[in-house]
């Protein structure tokens, strides 16, 4: 049967340049040629199968995300953010600023006065650094638990023990931290006219 198969294959493989070299070898008898074809077919069978595949198996890819927190773009609280100008004594104006904190871990928030200008230790102060407005702060937001709730004077708000715990919810990577600032004029004296400013920083620690 093998001899018959080889004879059938002979006209086909004679078209292949490689096999032509075999079958055209002048010193080879027909029997030798057929024997060579049969032997070669056995050896080459796997490589002659078109459409065969070979795969790498699973290639695993691994990436690690560390725990981190970072603030989104933070802009200043300007006059326009306040509920209005102070136009009389004993008047309170309020500004709120939504700060975006990206975090994949629970963090502790704490406020500090800035070392740059303006500083004024968190107290709204006029440009001559002479006159001040009564200033208070609060930090609120979903998932935020304060040590001291409510509006706080700078002396309390900026102390080391005054922190705000932000709980992390799995799958939530963006939080809104609401910073509220109030400015109040004295009850018995009209403050000097002009812009009052100060600086502060809020730090997230984990």
């Amino acid at each position: 049967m093998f001899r018959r198969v080889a004879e059938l294959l002979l006209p086909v493989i004679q078209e292949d340049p490689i096999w032509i070299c075999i079958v055209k070898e002048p010193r080879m008898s027909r029997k030798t040629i057929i024997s060579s074809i049969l032997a070669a077919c056995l050896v080459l069978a796997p490589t002659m199968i078109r459409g065969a595949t070979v795969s790498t198996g699973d290639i695993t890819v691994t990436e690690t995300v560390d725990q981190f927190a970072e603030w989104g773009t933070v802009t200043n609280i300007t006059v326009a953010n306040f509920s209005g100008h102070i136009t009389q004594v004993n008047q309170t104006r309020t500004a709120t600023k939504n700060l975006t904190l990206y975090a994949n871990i629970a963090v502790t928030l704490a406020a500090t006065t800035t070392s740059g200008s303006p500083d004024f230790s968190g107290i709204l102060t006029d440009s001559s650094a002479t006159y001040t407005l009564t200033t208070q702060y609060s930090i609120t937001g979903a998932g935020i638990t304060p040590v001291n709730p409510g509006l706080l004077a700078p002396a309390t708000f900026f102390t080391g023990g005054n922190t705000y715990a932000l709980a992390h919810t799995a799958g939530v990577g963006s939080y809104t931290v609401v910073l509220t600032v109030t400015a109040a004029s004295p009850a018995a004296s009209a403050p000097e006219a002009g812009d009052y400013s100060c600086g502060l920083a809020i730090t997230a620690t984990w």
Partner: protein
Amino acid sequence: MLAALLCCARALGVTQWQSLPYSVVMSTHIQGLGQSSTGTSPMRLEHDGLCTLSVSVHQLGDEVLTLGGTGAGRPTLTTAYKITGIPAQDTDWVSSSAFLSRTYIIAGNATENMTLWVQGTAPADSAPEPGNYTATIVLTVTF
């Protein structure tokens, strides 16, 4: 003799991957919003003729870096791939979905020293959950 030599020469030509298994571990951890990290794996393919390289997964989604492996609803990283080192190499990153439909024609009788590149990128508007993100793909050569 001539026949024997030719038979041996042809029989030695095979199509196979060398130095399996392959894996990719990213060079750096992601520690910030929108941050990308890249990893590579050298791959060596020996082939004796025209062949086609294609990409597949066991189930759709396996190609995406996912926290704790595949699973609907799990946090993911934007994942991109590319293969270099062959004439039909990618010149830019290919999204994970597009990568699944990529095929690479490789001609000739040679050994290809290819590189599989993978890039994971954190979202730009949300911190991804911390932990190990994994993806699994399979490269298959048809000849």
